[in-house]
């Protein structure tokens, strides 16, 4: 199957709703090891994206994603603003003027976005960051595509890997961001950024999956 522009717009709309539903949950995760604003900031950012989206919904996918990125960069703040903003800017640049995406395009979209996160935040695996959800997800997606799987089952493996990666942040001691100052006290808490990243990928799958 190929992913259409309308499905990308639908994904962003669904994601805004999912983040809003999880606002308290993300903020609560953040208050354990951060500064209790992740859900508040992400919701504010995606509400802004929802305001901008109608103006670009008939443009190419690259344009839609880049607009999303610029909006997040200028409205979220914190570390997640530039990180998720860069994710969407880079994914937008990677897909460019396309109006539909095949499964390799979809991989490129996510890969370019995650590369942007790495360049901006310089995380390594097991730092207890959003990268701990993204890295295994991308790897799972790559292997699934290499094994000849179709978009949906491949993406579903990526979501499962992201979920495992997210849960695997619980026993980790944070080495990046505000949580790192807690030292051993950061152990035992799930990383809020890895959680919102998982929700992002999960909501992409839910959007593409026939109800």
């Amino acid at each position, binding site marked *: 199957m190929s992913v259409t522009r309308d499905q990308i717009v639908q994904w962003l709309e669904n994601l805004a709703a999912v983040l809003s539903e999880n606002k308290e949950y993300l903020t609560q995760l953040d208050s354990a090891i951060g500064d209790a*604003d992740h859900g508040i900031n992400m919701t504010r950012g995606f509400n802004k994206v929802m305001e901008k989206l109608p103006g670009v919904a008939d443009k190419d996918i690259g344009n839609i994603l880049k607009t999303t990125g610029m909006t997040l960069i200028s409205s979220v703040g914190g570390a997640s603003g*530039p990180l998720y903003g860069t994710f969407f800017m880079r994914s937008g640049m990677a897909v460019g003027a396309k109006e539909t995406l095949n499964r390799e395009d979809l991989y490129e979209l996510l890969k370019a976005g995650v590369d942007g996160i790495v360049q901006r935040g310089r995380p390594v695996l097991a730092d207890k960051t959003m990268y701990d959800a993204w890295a295994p997800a991308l790897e799972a997606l790559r292997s699934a595509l290499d094994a000849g799987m179709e978009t949906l089952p491949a993406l579903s493996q990526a979501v499962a890997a992201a979920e495992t990666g997210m849960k695997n942040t619980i026993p980790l001691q944070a080495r990046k961001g505000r949580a*790192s*100052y807690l030292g051993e006290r950061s152990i035992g808490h799930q990383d809020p950024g890895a959680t919102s990243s998982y929700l992002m990928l999960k909501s992409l799958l839910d959007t593409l999956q026939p109800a």
Partner: protein
Amino acid sequence: MKKLINAVDDVVREQLEGMASAHSDLLKVHFDPNYVYRADAPVAGKVAIISGGGSGHEPMHGGFVGMGMLHAACPGEVFTSPTPDQMYEAAKAVDSGAGVLFIVKNYTGDVLNFETAAELAFADGIRVQNILIDDDVAVKDSLYTAGRRGVGTTVLVEKIVGAAAEAGYSLDACADLCRRVNQYGRSMGMALTSCTVPAAGKPTFELGDAEMEIGIGIHGEPGQKRMPMSTADEIAEMMALEILDDPAYSRTVREWDNDAGSWVDKFLVDEPFQAGDQVIAFVNSMGGTPVSELYAIYRKLAQVCADKGVTIVRNLIGPYITSLEMQGCSITLLKADAEILKLWDAPVNTPGLRWGI
């Protein structure tokens, strides 16, 4: 939650409107994106000094905008870093052509947003320097954390580097001075209570009546450790010794290279204090602690410094870098040479700091 606010979503905007109205002789406020800037900016021939960070630390940073200190300040939401468009637009508004120095407290959010802004400003033809403040000795290692946080030294740096810009220092000279002052400064903070972010509606952490939190930052985040409540003397001595006995601290920071048009890593080492050092001592309230208690802390701090052979040659005492209504305090000691003292004593005219005029 009991606060003097109208609506949670309007807290930052209304505070900025109030500042603009109260201090129209010194500063102006631009909205969407939000930044506070000197009424007479851009100042011809002078390097522009810009800082910023989450709101909730007032008077820092907006209260330090004016002659002899900051040219612009970019306030984020409460305890949330500002966004790059704020620093980028502020840079364009106050750059006289002599370049812009970003003073950035070392918090991941602030660092990432300022770095993005520096890239945008540079792409627009503005010469830019981006210097980190990382002075919090409560953070021991830089290898397994995001490094020391930027706390009390920020206030002293903004005064000193602001005076340097006023005196006509070049952009690179301002950046070198800023880096050096940061390396000379060390701070330690503690809390008696938590604080409540308006949007969250409840205290960020719970602290029992008989407890205190040692080694906090400035965002109501949990600190290094929790201890039974103690006396002013014991608390002052513990904090002063953490600072005075802090060994050499090394880390790698990223700075902007205008010639290469890219980021470069710099390895920096802060040397420990030594007997014979002259220092500026800064005792700061986290917002809820009265000045009277700060003097009790200063009294003991001065004794401990004297015992260590360290001479306090200037001091600053009061609420300058706060965490909303949190009770608690921080101590900053900054090694001061003749150049730094001269710049410290230079005239300053801002809502938050004013002397020599």
